[in-house]
């Protein structure tokens, strides 16, 4: 009874007042809904980030918490820019990013282009192809160590079966020139489906009437591919490339489990160097400075990524 009276009063009052009578204003509700997320991110992401920035100007070592912390200014950053190992790690990372993205884009786009022929059963086989992408890179990457074993491993056996090289000579993980490829192969196996799925969405977004018009104009298949298919799918391909680029720039799981950065430091990517500096040598200040540099790089890439996302969204 009381409720109904309140309701009729609320309905008769002008809109802004009504909102107040009914409870919280829209603006208040918006902040009530959004602020818990923002607060959590501030606590778990932003506060530690500022802490890391502070540490990057010090000589702090996490394994010696009682030692006096000295402010060293920009010394850590200067040392990083002059550190040979860091530059080698960055080159190794760039090498990985380049090859994995090149292979994944080529294979992924080709697969998507073939699936787009819509042969019988294409949906089923697409799902099968997508499976590796959903699995844990660490757990599956760990198992690849077994596949890569020189003699007993299935991979080495298959390669020697095809090529005739004795299976004991295929030392994927301990040979200096093969070790980087062992990681590139697993990453490509795992993430090609990702690129494929996005490319497929791109191909399916091209309206059929464009091809019909091209047929009427007697454009060859080759010409149609280069002037319709590829340019129209390009924003999607770029999106996939950017995202894989960001992810592989941070590559850690697989490398840590497959080679641990070795043999020597041939597969030591930036994340592995960072882990060694921060959690094995315990040079916390120094590694914080390196972490900040990586943050800035990823932040820049993420910025481009979001712009690309919004571009694709407008289609």
């Amino acid at each position: 009874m009381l409720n109904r009276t309140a309701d009729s009063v609320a309905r008769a009052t002008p809109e802004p007042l009504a909102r107040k009578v009914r409870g919280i204003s829209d603006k208040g509700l918006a902040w009530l809904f959004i602020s818990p997320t923002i607060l959590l991110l501030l606590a778990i992401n932003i506060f530690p980030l500022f802490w890391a920035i502070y540490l990057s100007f010090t000589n702090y070592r996490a394994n010696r918490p009682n030692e006096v912390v000295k402010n060293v200014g920009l010394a850590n950053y200067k040392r990083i820019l002059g550190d040979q190992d860091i530059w080698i790690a960055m080159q190794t990372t760039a090498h990985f990013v380049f090859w994995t993205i090149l292979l994944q884009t080529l294979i992924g786009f080709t697969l998507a282009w073939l699936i787009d022929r819509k042969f019988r059963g294409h949906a089923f086989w697409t799902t099968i192809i997508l499976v590796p992408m959903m699995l844990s890179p660490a757990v599956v990457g760990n198992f690849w160590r077994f596949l890569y074993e020189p003699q007993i491993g299935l991979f080495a056996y298959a390669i020697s079966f095809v090529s005739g090289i004795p299976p004991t000579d295929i030392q994927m993980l301990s040979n200096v020139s093969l070790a980087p490829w062992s990681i590139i192969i697993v990453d490509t196996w795992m993430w090609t489906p990702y690129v494929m799925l996005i490319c497929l969405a791109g191909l399916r977004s091209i309206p059929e009437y464009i091809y019909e018009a091209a047929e009427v104009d007697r454009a060859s298949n080759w010409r149609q591919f280069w002037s319709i298919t590829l340019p129209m799918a390009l924003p999607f391909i770029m999106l996939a490339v950017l995202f894989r680029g960001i992810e592989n720039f941070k590559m850690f799981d697989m490398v840590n489990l497959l080679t641990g950065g070795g043999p020597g430091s041939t597969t030591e990517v930036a994340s592995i160097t960072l882990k060694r500096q921060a959690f094995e040598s315990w040079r916390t200040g120094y590694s914080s400075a390196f972490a900040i540099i990586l943050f800035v790089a990823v932040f820049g890439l993420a910025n481009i990524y979001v712009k690309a996302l919004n571009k694709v969204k407008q289609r």
Partner: protein
Amino acid sequence: MSLTTAHSVVAPSANSKLIAGTIIVAYALISIVPLLWIFATSFKTPPDSIAYPPKIVFQPSLEGYCNLFTTRTRQTPEYINSLGPATGLCDETVRKRNMVIAGPSNFMPRFVNSLIIAFGSTFCAVFLGTLSAYGFSRFKVPLADDLLFFILSTRMMPPIAVAIPIYLMYRELGLSDTALGMILLYTAVNVSLAVWLLKGFIDEIPREYEEAAMIDGYTRLQAFWRTVLPQATTGIAATAIFCLIFAWNEYAFAALLTSGTAQTAPPFIPTIIGEGGQDWPAVAAGTTIFLVPILVFTILLRKQLLRGITFGAVRK
């Protein structure tokens, strides 16, 4: 070629379909070989698993699963003979190798940790994400684009770089190697995905429903609860599964921030060793048990996958 035929002039020919189909099927079959090999290895005996040439046909055995769940000690045959009859299948299998079961392994506790941390963080991330997504979708939030970018960018951070200050912070707060600490961390990582995905799903629900409900006298909160939430169920379920998969698969944070009581399965599985190095059948058994839930979810999710992996930008 006539343009008056009923079927499309641009439909691929039967021949090109056949070639495309063959290549795709071949790729799919090759790409699942490693997974089939994991499954097969989990049913091999340790000698079979390291045989040369690799055995495709073998006598299936549960030794890998037995070794996964137990720890064992080597004993003399005399001692084993002096024991009573074997109490179970695993006991029998183990005795054939001159071993006795010493106790349960750490696999079960690690697996349970994975379950608690994955489900706990998923629940929190989806809860916070739904609220924020509704806020961003329906209200004029100042600097909305910047806030959304900020939320997404937190997910792009390199985990090792984040782990350094988190490690120190958790040490101060006593959250090191605790399930609560990992739940908080995974919630923070997943909430960005949840906000972006759910905003897309909620954007698709027409505002007219809520407006009608509000004209009928519902408050904004009631309208959200009674009209928006029920219609967003599919989206919320899909988002939850994506969060669950991330938390389930995560390795870098888990490896650096947990070591004992709160350790999850991904950093644990690679450490399963037998007598002469890695016990591959046991590793394969652990991997199989770990992967099966994800396979089921992937099949359930296949229509939403694209959306999930692009933060909701590409829809179909």
